[in-house]
């Protein structure tokens, strides 16, 4: 009997994939929002204009909700290396455990010590202390991103390791491991993508208030700065960071690049498919519309460069889900392009002073906020499906990595448990975030009328 129920590797992959995708919905917003909050707090200190402080207070609450869900869904991630990927941890724990521990020691201690101060501590810390807390939280969240990307980069492009006497991996050079060139490219690309998410969410809430006619000063601030940051970050995600990411994949994982583009036959003047569906059985791209030479140029710098096709490689080295990889990559690229167009147009309209009067554009900006989440998720799916069939590229197969002692039923059981738990968490998160958005930023006029103890209770 051969069904997915007999394939434990599948369930371990699905559980890790599901829990990490869900988890990353929250840190991508906190990493993106963190620098908005720092910037507004800085403006508040410089100008003394209370609208910036209101923005900080409002967004710190949204940040806090995301941070809390990020924490509770993040703790299982580290433990799943041991519970579900025990054989992988035995093999590579000496290397990747270092950065997972560093993430806790260097990044999370910083972030978690100050996040409470950022959300509730404005009174206790004073303006400068509050600003320092905002910086500490932003640094902590970005540092944690770096350590995780070093860990992932080691799996994409292992460097700085040595093979020990017992066959497992150890660290040969900590600097080579931490300064993996892959990690720099991926960090730049990933963090800017997080800023795109942050900018779209800030813009969407600005658009929501503008459409509702609420909080006009705050709405203008969010719209102006959200669209501008959104444009810059969307541009930088595509070029140079996305371009560099594709080049590094082309150089180190040519099979992955071929699979991402659905290229079965290699050749020079390789094109980029704008439209087309990979047909793995027939080994071709169905109904393709291609830009000739574009892939050769983007990946290797010349239109005539030779690009390998999948057929140049043995089939057991192909990524094991070509279609999903291809669609993930192409939809991500398409969304990224649309982000540039939308935010470029919105920035232009803002510059012409027509942003807030165009209800259609405001509606589009409001409804656009889920798409950066989708693009971020698809980017990660491209990275992780592209790495298959390897867990550590060229060193260790995914099928060798999962916990052999954990039975299938146990893995399915915990996956179902996570599904239920995360569904409830998602509902709570949306409900409470909706409430905060409904309450909105506090207007200064209200704060001056009410009594001091009430005000204190509101602000703290």
């Amino acid at each position, binding site marked *: 009997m051969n069904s997915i129920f007999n394939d434990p590797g599948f369930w371990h992959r699905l559980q890790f994939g599901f829990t990490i995708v869900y988890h990353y919905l929250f840190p991508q917003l906190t990493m993106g929002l963190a620098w908005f909050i720092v910037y507004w707090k800085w403006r508040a200190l410089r100008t003394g204009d209370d609208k910036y402080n209101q923005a900080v207070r409002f967004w710190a609450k949204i940040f806090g909700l995301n941070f809390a869900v990020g924490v509770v*869904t993040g703790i299982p991630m580290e433990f799943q290396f041991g519970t579900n990927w025990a054989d992988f941890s035995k093999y590579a724990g000496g290397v990747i455990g270092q950065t997972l*521990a560093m993430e806790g020691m260097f990044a999370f201690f910083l972030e978690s010590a100050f996040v409470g101060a950022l959300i509730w501590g404005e009174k206790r810390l004073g303006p400068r202390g509050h600003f320092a807390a905002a910086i500490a939280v932003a640094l902590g969240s970005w540092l944690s991103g770096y350590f995780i990307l070093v860990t992932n980069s080691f799996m994409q492009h292992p460097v700085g390791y040595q093979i020990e006497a017992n066959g497992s991996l150890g660290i040969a050079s900590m600097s080579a491991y931490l300064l993996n060139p892959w990690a720099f490219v991926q960090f730049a690309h990933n963090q800017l993508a997080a800023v795109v998410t942050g900018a779209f969410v800030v813009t969407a809430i600005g658009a929501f208030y503008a459409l509702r006619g609420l909080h006009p000063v705050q709405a203008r601030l969010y719209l102006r700065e959200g669209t501008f940051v959104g444009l810059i970050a969307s541009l930088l995600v595509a070029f140079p960071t996305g371009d560099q990411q594709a080049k590094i994949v082309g150089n180190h994982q040519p099979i992955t690049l071929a699979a991402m583009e659905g290229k079965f036959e290699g050749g020079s003047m390789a094109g980029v498919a704008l439209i087309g569906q990979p047909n793995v059985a027939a080994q071709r791209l169905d109904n393709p519309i291609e830009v000739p030479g574009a892939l050769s140029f983007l990946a290797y710098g010349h239109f005539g460069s030779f690009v390998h096709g999948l057929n140049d490689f043995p089939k057991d080295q192909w990524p094991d889900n070509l279609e999903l990889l291809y669609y993930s990559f192409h939809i991500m690229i398409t969304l990224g392009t649309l982000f540039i167009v939308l935010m470029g147009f919105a920035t232009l309209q803002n510059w012409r002073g027509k942003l807030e009067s165009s209800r259609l554009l405001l509606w589009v900006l409001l409804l656009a906020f889920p798409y950066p989440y989708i693009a971020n998720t698809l980017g990660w799916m491209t990275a992780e499906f592209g790495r298959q069939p390897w867990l550590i590229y060229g060193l260790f197969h995914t099928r060798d990595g999962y916990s052999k002692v954990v039975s299938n039923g146990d893995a399915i059981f915990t996956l179902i448990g996570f599904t239920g738990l995360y569904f409830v968490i998602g509902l709570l998160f949306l409900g409470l975030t909706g409430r905060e958005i409904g309450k909105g930023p506090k207007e200064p006029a209200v704060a001056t009328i009410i009594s001091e103890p009430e005000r204190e209770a509101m602000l703290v």
Partner: protein
Amino acid sequence: MIAIWYAVVSFMLIIYVVLDGRNFGAGMLQWFVAKTPEERRQVIAAIGPLWTWHEVWLLGFGGTLMAIFPRLMASAFAGYYLALFLILWCLILRGVSIEVGGHINDRLWQGYWDFNFVLSNLLLAILFGAAAGNVARGVPVDAQGNFSMAFFTDFNVRGHVGLLDWYTVSIAILAVVMLAAHGATYLTLKTEGPVHDRCEIWAKYLWVAVVPLLAVVLIESRIVRPDLPGRALFNPFWWIGLIVIAASAFTLLTGLTSGRELRAFVGSSFLIVGLLATGAAAIFPVMLLSTLAPENSLTAYAVASSSTTLIRASFWWPIGFGLAVFYFVFISRRYAGKVSVRRDTQGFY
């Protein structure tokens, strides 16, 4: 080198248990020491804005364990698969109930999350206690260094043991009572008004209850592990642990009787540090004893990473630890003193 890293990894877990243990304790007592919604929010405010910081110690422990003792981490986490997920889910539930409860000022809503809060903290104390019991007793490690086990088998402590047996259950009970006592001592320090007065009484009764339970567990441990303390008599950490236990028990006792709250809390924290450190020193170098065959046991020397990897880790760990202490000292001064219902409710905003 490996012995030092064993001490470091144990130290991280012990810090976690002391810090979050007080939250478990305070959390499970919430219903008993706080009657009105405001009083209950006071208990949550006392656990306060640093609960995620406490949980980072668990993450730091997990990562360090993976880097330094990868084969132990892999065997233990996979072997305790379902039990570990119960812990993770309880941690999720606890975190959610802290964060969510205060967002809506409604009795029914808060009552529901307070219930989850109390329940998840109680379960966490039981689960961590049973886990400690499993480490002390040993698990059915096979010749390949792997194990998997049922929640319970015949409640015996030899051979094919389950997660729960008479020994691990009694340690779980001890953990619940002791962490409740620790939490009550902490709440006495951090709160004022009726919560403070109730906690003061609870702390005294609970610490009195700890004494016979601890005596029973010690006698049981002698039966379950007749080989202990054995080698530990030559381990300086074991003796240091005993001295810490004696000194902190005295501090705790004088603190409780004289009403000096900080003194009692320091004593209570170090008493738990001392007990766990003594236990960790006693079992060294065996990290997971096999109940099937002693030669299957996983020792620190057998499961550690190579010495070059350990040396690389020795460069960054002290820096990370120093920074963590620095942040903590900086931020905890901002939260010093008793929580006030008006200022620190962490809700109704």
